[in-house]
Structure formats: structure tokens, C-alpha cells
């Protein structure tokens, strides 16, 4: 059964499937790292912590990019009311990006990082060895080429079709993503400059242009599942992303407190980043408001649950947990502690992992020719996956927050001489790390349930 409005939307399917595969890898490596936090020599000679971490974070970034690309290929043709400019290009870029991603991850795992730097000729243009930007320079170039081809394909599609607010916001977000990634190629010898501009990629992605992408995907899914008037939803979308950028751009200042920067950043960063929870709070109000005002009962209950869930969890993870340590006089003690890790986990899961699962939940039944929604049984299993993963992530965040508070208390607050050393402090945090690892196992069970839901078909309906 063909249930797609535009046939070229089908190119989204491999992107979504590959994203889910990488997601599994990310969680497995997360569990390895979590165990290394308490059993320090676990897999020590085979997968050192730094390698596991690199794989964990890079897989996250890459699967989210696959998810965003799949989302764009799915929603842009429908919003533009025209076929994608070139489905062949989209498929070619899929294979290029997938191959580059797999080779890079294998490189991390199979040879020492310094060897990977040598064989990829890092010395010609050194960009490796910085947090989240560990990819070999050649991989980074590959990412730029894939992004350019992707933006060209979407741009041409929008040009010949309808230009909706959702399309324009999605496109602005994706162009911003590509533009700010270019700072990954700037790696000056002077660490002060290096660190300052490194945040142009990291912060302006996750607390800037990615929020546009999230907003656009959420608006699209809400229009579809609630049937609320496009004018209303797009107005909310503009208000939310206006708040996101107005607070988030100068909110970058919360990363400049302890760099080689003037003190005014402590004021600018504190004030504007204190406003950063507002767009996320507005997103919660808006998602629930739209669902309450729905004009139709969409059969895909799971997609609606993800849409509401991502708004709430993004508010908690990015908004509340971000605010917890964003004021400069608090951050002075919490900077680079387990508090940061707690915030990072819930924010990425709530805002970005969940928005990708929202669009997958909505689009996959159509992409697979099942119809508007999966059968009831599959949706029930999918919702089990939703709750297990989400509740597990809440506990991961709470345990890491507990670890962080104790760490600050023992290691940061006392004077030199009185304070416990880093390693002595870590020993005291062991119980929190064990609990976090157990929560991580529940997260994996949730992920397995979620993935299982894709394989459940309604036997009665078929018969």
C-alpha cells in the first residue's frame, strides 16, 4: 500500500533506519563508559575510556544528523507540495555519509587515535583531538560536502514549491548548522582563541540553530496529528524560535566565564542564559495546547506522545537543568563537574533524540506503506519504549546530579589543602555511578522495546 503524498519522501527511510542503528551503538558504548566509571580497568587495554567516549558522543551527533536529514527529506517535499529536486542525490549522499561515518568509528576503535591522526594526514591541517570535533579532517570535509549537497537538494525543492514558515525555519536551521560547523576547521595554536571559537560550533549548534530544526519538526508533526490551523502553529513556531535565538545567542556567554575573556561575559552570559528556559517552557505550553485543541483524532497515538514528551523533556533537560548551573557564581563551582554531565544527558535526549524519534514515529508507518499509524499492539510496545527510555533518562540525570552535588561539596567548595583530590572524590561517588549504570541498562531495555515495535504486525488484520 502506498501511503506517501510525494514518492520522493521515501528517501528519508534509509536515513531513519541508519540513525536507529547508530543509536544502538551509542547506548552500548555509553554502558561501557558507565561501567568504566566504577570498574576503572574494564576493557582497559582494548577500549580505553577516551575511545569509548569519542564513539559515544560522535555516534550521537551523527545519528542526530541522519535524523535531521531524514526529517528534512520527509517534510520539505510535503510542505513544498512538490517532489524532492533529486532523490538520487539524496540516496548517493546517504551512502557517502554512512560510509564516512562507519569508517571514522572503525578508525577510532581499531587503531590508536594518534595513528588515526597520522594516516589521515592531520598534520597538514590539524583539527583533531578537540571535544566532539575528534573526526579526522578528511571526515570533516566529507561532512561539509554532504551538507552542501543536502542543502542544495532541499533549496532547489523549496524554490520550485510552496514556501511555508516550517520550510523556511527548517532551512535556516540547517544552513546555520552547516555554516557554524565551518569553525571546526579553525584550530589556532593559541588555546584561548581555540576554545572561544570552538563554542561557535558547539553552543551555536545545540543552543541555537538546532532549536530551529527541532521547532520546525515539532510544528510539522503537530499540524499533522492535531489538525490545528497552520496559521496558529506557525505563529507559535516563530515566537518560540525568536525567544530561542534572542536568549541563546548571547547565552553563549555562559561558556566564556572561565576563558581568557573580559568579565562582562559573566553578566551577559548569566542574564541571557537565564532566559534560555523560556522558549522550552513555551514549547510545552504550545504542544499541550495544540493537542488539547485538536480537530481530529489521529490514529498514531505514539507520535503524539513523542511530540508531547520531547517538549517536556527538552524543558527539563535543556531548560531546568541548564538553568541549575548557568549563573556565573554557581558555575564557578559546578563547571566541568558531573552536573554538566547530568544536564548534557537529559538535554540531548529530551530535545534532540526525542524530536528525531517523534518524526520517525510519525513518518515510518507511511514510509513503510503501513498507513497512518502502526497497529495498536505495535504502538503499545513503542510507548513502552518511550516510557522506559524517558524514565531511565530521568534517573540517569538525577543520579549524575547527586554525584555532581557531592563532587562540588567535597572537591570544589573547600579551600586548597582541605578539599579532596579529584580521584579521592570519585571514589566517594561510586554509589551514584552504579545507580546510573543500572538506569542505563533500563534505558537499553527501553531502546530494545522501541526497536521491537517496528517488527510487530497485526496478524488479525493481515488474515
Amino acid at each position, binding site marked *: 500500500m502506498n501511503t506517501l503524498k510525494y514518492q520522493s519522501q521515501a528517501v528519508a527511510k534509509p536515513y531513519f533506519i541508519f540513525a536507529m542503528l547508530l543509536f544502538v551503538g551509542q547506548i552500548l558504548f555509553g554502558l561501557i563508559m558507565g561501567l568504566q566509571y566504577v570498574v576503572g580497568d574494564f576493557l582497559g587495554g582494548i577500549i580505553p*575510556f577516551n575511545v569509548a*567516549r569519542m564513539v559515544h558522543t560522535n555516534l550521537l551527533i551523527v545519528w542526530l544528523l541522519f535524523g535531521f536529514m531524514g526529517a528534512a527529506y520527509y517534510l520539505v517535499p510535503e510542505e513544498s507540495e512538490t517532489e524532492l529536486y533529486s532523490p538520487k542525490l539524496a540516496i548517493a549522499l546517504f551512502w557517502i555519509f554512512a560510509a564516512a561515518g562507519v569508517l571514522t568509528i572503525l578508525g577510532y576503535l581499531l587503531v590508536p587515535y594518534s595513528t588515526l591522526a597520522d594516516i589521515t594526514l592531520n598534520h597538514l591541517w590539524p583539527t583533531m583531538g578537540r571535544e566532539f570535533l575528534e573526526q579526522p579532517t578528511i571526515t570533516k570535509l566529507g561532512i561539509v560536502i554532504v551538507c552542501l549537497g543536502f542543502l542544495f537538494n532541499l533549496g532547489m525543492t523549496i524554490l520550485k514549491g510552496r514556501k511555508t514558515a516550517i520550510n523556511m525555519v527548517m532551512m535556516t536551521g540547517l544552513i546555520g548548522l552547516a555554516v557554524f560547523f565551518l569553525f571546526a576547521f579553525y584550530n589556532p595554536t593559541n588555546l584561548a582563541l581555540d576554545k572561544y571559537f570552538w563554542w561557535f560550533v558547539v553552543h551555536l549548534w545545540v543552543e541555537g540553530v538546532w532549536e530551529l530544526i527541532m521547532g520546525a519538526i515539532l510544528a510539522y508533526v503537530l499540524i499533522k496529528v492535531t489538525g490545528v490551523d497552520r496559521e496558529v502553529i506557525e505563529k507559535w513556531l516563530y*515566537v518560540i524560535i525568536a525567544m530561542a535565538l534572542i536568549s541563546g545567542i548571547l547565552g553563549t556567554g555562559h561558556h566564556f566565564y572561565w576563558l581568557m575573556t573580559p568579565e562582562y561575559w559573566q553578566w551577559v552570559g548569566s542574564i541571557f542564559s537565564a532566559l534560555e528556559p523560556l522558549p522550552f517552557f513555551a514549547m510545552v505550553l504550545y504542544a499541550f495546547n495544540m493537542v488539547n485543541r485538536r480537530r481530529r483524532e489521529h490514529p498514531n497515538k505514539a507520535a503524539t506522545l513523542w511530540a508531547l514528551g520531547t517538549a517536556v523533556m527538552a524543558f527539563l533537560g535543556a531548560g531546568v537543568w541548564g538553568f541549575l548551573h548557568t549563573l556565573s557564581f554557581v558555575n564557578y563551582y559546578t563547571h566541568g563537574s558531573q552536573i*554538566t554531565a547530568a544536564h548534557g544527558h537529559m538535554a540531548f535526549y529530551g530535545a534532540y533524540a526525542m524530536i528525531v524519534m517523534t518524526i520517525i514515529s510519525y513518518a515510518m508507518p507511511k514510509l513503510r506503506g503501513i498507513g497512518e499509524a502502526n497497529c495498536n499492539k505495535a504502538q503499545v510496545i513503542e510507548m513502552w519504549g518511550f516510557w522506559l527510555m524517558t524514565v531511565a533518562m530521568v534517573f540517569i540525570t538525577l543520579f549524575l546530579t547527586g554525584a555532581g552535588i557531592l563532587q562540588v561539596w567535597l572537591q570544589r567548595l573547600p579551600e586548597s589543602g582541605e578539599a579532596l583530590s579529584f580521584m579521592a572524590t570519585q571514589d566517594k561517588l561510586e554509589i551514584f555511578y552504579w545507580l546510573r549504570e543500572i538506569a542505563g541498562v533500563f534505558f537499553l531495555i527501553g531502546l530494545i522495546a522501541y526497536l521491537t515495535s517496528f517488527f510487530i504486525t497485526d496478524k488479525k488484520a493481515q488474515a
Partner: protein
Amino acid sequence: MSESFTKGMARNIYYGGSVFFFLIFLALTFHTVKEMPKRDNRHNITEAVERGKHLWEKNNCVGCHSLIGEGAYFAPELANVYDRRGGGNEVAFKAFFKGWMNAQPLNIPGRRQMPNFHLNDQEIDDLAEFLKWTSELDDNNWPPNIEG
């Protein structure tokens, strides 16, 4: 939201607000970069410091350690390790650092394990120079105490 507040108004706030605050961000960035030489000791960046930074990156040190609070939180902060382990004395720090690097992995059962990166004496010295230079950066008095 009220009907009198239209989509067009929301869109204008989005475009206008983002451009306005982005321009402020650029202006502050311009000023910050101009002020940076007062705080970053760039005149002390020797060739050894430069080589040391490349070694820091090439061995993915930031995959376990943090440097001024950025990086991983699995192993100690290193922006002030020069002061913590060498008491601010170059000879003392370099002696400690060479011994430490060559003693890895410590192979203490259950303890977090640092790999041996097989650096030669010159490379260990370069890395030490990078950490010394880093410790002298003016980062607005972070961290709060010597433990990092």
C-alpha cells in the same frame, strides 16, 4: 495567543531579534578578541608549547581529562596540574610529569587506567611546556581551588 498578535508580527520579532542580538554578539566577540592578548600570554607561546598542543590533541587527552573545565570528567583537570603537581616549579613539575607518563599504565586492579602513549623525552617535555603555559592563562580565577 491573542488574535491581534499576528504571524507576521511574530516573524518580524524572530528575524529582527535574531539579527540584532547576533550583531551584538559579533561586536562583543570583536572586543573580546582584541582584549585577549592581555590574558592569554601569547608572547610565551614557544615552538615547544605549540608542539605540546599538537600532542595534547593527537592523543585525545581531552577524551578523559578536562582543560579549564572543558573535556571529559573521567580524569583530573589539567589546566592547573603544573601548580598542583609541581608547586609552580618547572624542574619539579617536569620530573614528576616524566615519571608519571612513563609509569602508565599503573595496572592497579579496579583503578581507572591511563594508557601509555609512548611519548619520547622530547615529546614529554613539549607536553609539559604546553601545560605550564596553560596554567599561566588568566581564566578569571577558575578553578576555585588547587584540586581543579
